[in-house]
């Protein structure tokens, strides 16, 4: 899932400036942080504004906060062990990959009593990548869907088919990441988005090649800004960004196509080499506290699995189909799974063929 990248850049700048300024004072701070450190690795712009300060104040644990932009960028860093993080927030299929490769350790849930606030259905979905629910605690969740501009698209949008409609030549924005792009084609063809069958993937590739002349650009973060700026009529986007774009441009509407889509989770996990496991569990527990989960939701606008936070939301938000889609539609959706190195190689090869065509 990609977040607000420009803000992230700005935030990174600010953080680098302030941390340069505070470099010396940090070391004298051992009195202020009697309970040691927790090293957090999270998506950029993916936490409420004063949540870290609150955590430090209440627990006496110092937070070292680091950010990544893609799952793929995060993985080699954790795998190499160059930096030992305490708690990380990857997405579903990446959690599975890390678990299968022995990079994670089970969470001691006696230290995470607030888990009771996480809705049971979300834990059920999480079994797709964490069968025992022993390695991960859901943080944000959502879908992938079509964001369209009501002033530029006349007909009702309810299917992926519109992304192949020649009428919208040069008005379509696709996701520039392998799994997301293929998921669209796979769902249109009524395949599983975890398909590893070569003929199915070849069919999806051909469909994407057929679509290419209609696509204005393959982008990740820019979908949000380009849709807000009326640069395109239709874009494939994460549900969490949809709410934000609607605040900025009231003509935008988000739908989950009827063929189904990708249901994704970003969950907290503890890497096997975490130096401060207890503090990591304290962090996860804190993130599950209803008021904190609400603060996070309020700032990043990604869907929360926290029932306590949902109680704090107003009616309008709870009925918002972007945040809480219909049960029936969700049944059509699938969670990404890690497909193993061989299938990954096929996906990469076919994706390159699409892009170089």
């Amino acid at each position, binding site marked *: 899932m990609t977040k607000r990248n420009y803000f992230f850049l700005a935030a990174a700048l600010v953080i680098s400036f302030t941390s340069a300024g505070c470099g010396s004072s940090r070391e004298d701070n051992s009195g202020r942080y009697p309970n040691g450190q927790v090293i957090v690795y999270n998506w950029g712009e993916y936490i409420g504004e004063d949540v870290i300060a609150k955590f430090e104040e209440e627990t006496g644990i110092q937070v070292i906060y680091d950010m990544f932009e*893609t799952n*793929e*960028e995060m*993985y*080699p860093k954790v795998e190499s062990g160059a930096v030992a993080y305490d708690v990380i927030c990857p997405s579903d299929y990446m959690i599975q990959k890390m678990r299968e490769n022995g990079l994670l350790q089970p969470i001691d849930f006696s230290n995470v009593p607030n888990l009771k606030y996480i809705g049971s259905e979300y834990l059920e979905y999480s079994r797709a990548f964490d069968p025992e629910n022993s390695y991960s605690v859901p943080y944000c969740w959502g879908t992938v869907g079509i964001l369209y501009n009501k002033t530029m698209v006349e007909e009702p949008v309810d299917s992926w088919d519109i992304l192949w409609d020649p009428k919208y030549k*040069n008005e379509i924005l696709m996701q*520039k*990441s*392998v799994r997301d792009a293929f998921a669209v084609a796979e769902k249109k063809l009524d395949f599983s988005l975890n398909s590893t069958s070569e003929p199915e993937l070849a069919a999806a590739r051909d469909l994407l090649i057929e679509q*290419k002349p209609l*696509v*204005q*650009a*393959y*982008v990740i973060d820019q979908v949000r800004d380009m849709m807000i*700026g*009326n*640069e*395109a009529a239709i874009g494939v986007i994460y549900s969490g960004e949809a709410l934000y774009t609607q605040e900025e441009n009231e003509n935008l509407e988000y739908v989950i196509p009827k063929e189904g889509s990708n249901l994704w989770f970003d969950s907290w996990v503890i890497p096997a080499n975490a130096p401060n496991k207890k503090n990591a569990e304290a962090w996860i527990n804190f993130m599950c506290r209803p008021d904190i989960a609400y603060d996070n939701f309020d700032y990043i606008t990604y869907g929360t699995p926290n029932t306590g936070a949902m109680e704090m939301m107003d009616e309008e938000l709870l009925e918002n189909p972007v945040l809480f889609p219909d049960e029936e539609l969700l049944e059509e959706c699938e969670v990404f799974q890690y497909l193993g*190195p061989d299938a*990954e*190689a096929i996906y*990469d090869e076919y994706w*390159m*063929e699409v*892009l*170089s*065509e």
Partner: protein
Amino acid sequence: MKIKKNLSKTLLAGPYLVWMIAFTIIPLCMVGVYGLTDRTGVFTMDNLTLLAQRGYMKALLLSLGLSLLSTVICLALSYPLAMILRSRGNGRKGFMVFLFILPMWMNFLLRTLAWRTLLEKNGVINALLDLMGLPSLQIINTPAAIVLGMVYNFLPFMILPVYNCLMKIDNDVINAAKDLGANAFQTFFRVILPLSVPGIISGVTMVFIPALTTFVISDLLGGGKVLLIGNIIEQKFTTANNWHVGSGLSLVLMIFILISMAVLNKYDKNGEGNAF
């Protein structure tokens, strides 16, 4: 005395040697090792021969084509400019060179992002064209936008060496040519142009090679629709997490660069031999 001199020379070169070994030699060896092995660590040429496949070949040819075109455009823009600068008075000359270097003070990424904003469908340029009742310009996300980005970003690297080289030509040489009855045309083609070859060569190298390997410009201005060889290598290292293929492709690209430098150097030596 001699030993002492050598020692001090070695000491002075020391930091550079350490730098070279740590950041050039060792990484280059690692690229070689990665490029010639597969994931299990067994020796293979597959990573190199992969380039013969359709998608890869297409990207390589496109990269070669676009970077050549950009180099030619840069040269066509720079040479007349450098000639004009040569004939100007000192004060104005300095100012004009300054104007061309000024954009380089800003970050390369920001300048390229700015081009995106300018060229977008509802961008600044199209808004102006629209205001004047002219048809809109649709080059964003096409190879044309990438060439524009390359020319814009690499132009100073062509102007400076060409300008420096032209400035070094002694006026007496030109006056002598005129004295001996050469007309303006002959003076240019038989005296000025051959004397400026080293500058052209170094400018061509400094534009062609970064243009051949760029992936940022094609990413930002190509909208992901135009895949250059640099993009493929970048993707192999990041999203595909396959350093072996990425290194293998880099090795092949290095061969292409070495060939072009060898060809250029040959001309350069000839040029210098004639000139001085």
